[in-house]
């Protein structure tokens, strides 16, 4: 009996959470359309998300590309097709690893910070203060983050891919003495506009999802069962990182299955 009650309460809480998230998104989109549009806060957030994550993305991109080069070289040369290394590295990066790993790195670095920032503003009544000043907190706090994410995450993904392809080249060609011309040629022959489109669609969707989920967890931290205070914020942050990472991976599968 008690178990049933628990299940029911959990079910209700989940439904309420979904509704709250949907409303959060609606209010954010309404805030997005409100005039006048202010560019400065967006630029500031681009600086936080974009240039702040650049180095991390650069290094993860480089090492992922290098590992792909290494693994790809040994696997492919077993079948005597090490000339296709360029294609293998570029396609795995552009279609899957670039968008997904960029999104995961940004979640860890910026999504968690976004959630904590909004959560602290909520528990110290700063969001209520905005409400009382008749300043729309969605427009003021969330919209710049969303726009900045939509601009900078696709760009970071491009950086990740570029650096990764170069990393694969360094290992496959320079270190293991593969054929430089074949690396480039196979890449050029196999990467199509469809792959690039998939990469772009994915990175935009992931940006949207991760800002939405992380910001919502912080914004409504007081509506969560763990309640108020520093612990509430820390738990919301953990849960935001987990939820948005899972959402990114699920979305990755869905988008791939639709676009292949």
């Amino acid at each position, binding site marked *: 009996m008690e178990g049933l009650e628990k299940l029911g309460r959990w079910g209700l809480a989940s439904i309420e959470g979904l509704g709250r998230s949907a409303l959060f998104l609606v209010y954010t989109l309404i805030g997005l359309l409100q005039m006048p549009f202010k560019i400065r806060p967006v630029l500031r957030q681009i600086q936080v998300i974009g240039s702040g994550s650049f180095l991390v993305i650069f290094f993860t991109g480089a090492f992922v590309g290098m590992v792909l080069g290494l693994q790809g070289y040994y696997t492919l040369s077993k079948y005597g097709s090490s000339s296709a290394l360029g294609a293998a590295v570029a396609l795995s990066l552009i279609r899957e690893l670039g968008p997904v790993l960029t999104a995961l790195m940004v979640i860890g670095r910026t999504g968690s910070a976004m959630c904590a*920032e909004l959560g*602290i*503003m909520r528990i*110290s*009544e*700063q969001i*209520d*203060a905005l*409400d*009382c*000043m*008749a*300043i*729309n907190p969605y427009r*003021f706090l969330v919209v710049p983050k969303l726009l900045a994410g939509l601009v900078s995450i696709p760009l970071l993904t491009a950086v990740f891919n570029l650096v990764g392809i170069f990393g694969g080249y360094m290992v496959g060609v320079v270190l293991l003495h593969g054929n430089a011309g074949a690396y480039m040629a196979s890449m050029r022959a196999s990467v199509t506009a469809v792959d690039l489109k998939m990469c772009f669609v994915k990175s935009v969707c992931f940006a949207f999802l991760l800002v939405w989920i992380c910001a919502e967890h912080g914004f409504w931290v007081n509506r969560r069962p763990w309640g108020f205070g520093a612990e509430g914020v820390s738990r919301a942050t953990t849960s935001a990182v987990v939820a948005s990472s899972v959402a990114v991976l699920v979305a990755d599968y869905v988008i791939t299955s639709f676009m292949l």
Partner: protein
Amino acid sequence: MAAADFCIQLKGIHKSFGTQEVLKGVDLDIERGATTVICGESGQGKSVLLKHILGLIRPDRGEVLVEGRDISRLRGAALKQVRTRFGVLFQGVALFDSMTVFDNIALPLRERSRLPESAVAAKVGRALEMMDLTGSGDKFPAQLSGGMKKRVGLARALQLEPDILLFDEPTTGLDPVKSHDVYRLFFATQKKLGYTSIIVSHDIPKIFNLADHIAILHDGRVRACQSPAELQRSRDPFVRNFITRVMGTAHDSQRECVNQA
């Protein structure tokens, strides 16, 4: 008195948090252009009451009429429109902690008025001077003392010339001279602008000179809402008890100081 004289009316407000019943049917009328002080012991629900007027908390039962419209039923643009008239100071001040003092005070001007930046700077400069904060404009809230935060909050609340002021303990944490200054400032600006103000305060003897009405919140209800003179003459045993207790503590602690000297 005609109903039009009241700009805010609370009717039978009930509010519980979980099993704790905080407000048990609060009725309170706030007269336009006057100063109403809400007092009561700590934890009686004064801050909760204020948040009902702001529309931040919705009552379980009862209605909160601001200019005749129930704020607990308003949403979106209509709610925003009512709130443009409020100037608010929270008990915890709620300054934006990642902005400087200057930006905090400038925020309502930048977001809600179309003043050019030079005019904003001039206005904020005047406000800083008035609140005796000159030179602190570049500091962050975490670098201020408690009393300074209160003054920044006051300056921020007054920026857009609101016509309803809601201040939760504006002078707690200020030294007697500063709190006197704050009250004098209220008085002067209220004469000039004629705003309605609702102040939660524990400064019992001091606010007797300032308030037009004093509402005593006790056990989830407003037990008395009268002018200070009426209150002091009141025969209601609860009110008498409250007054003598409050006055008495001031008196006793004075005597203790004398005895120790």
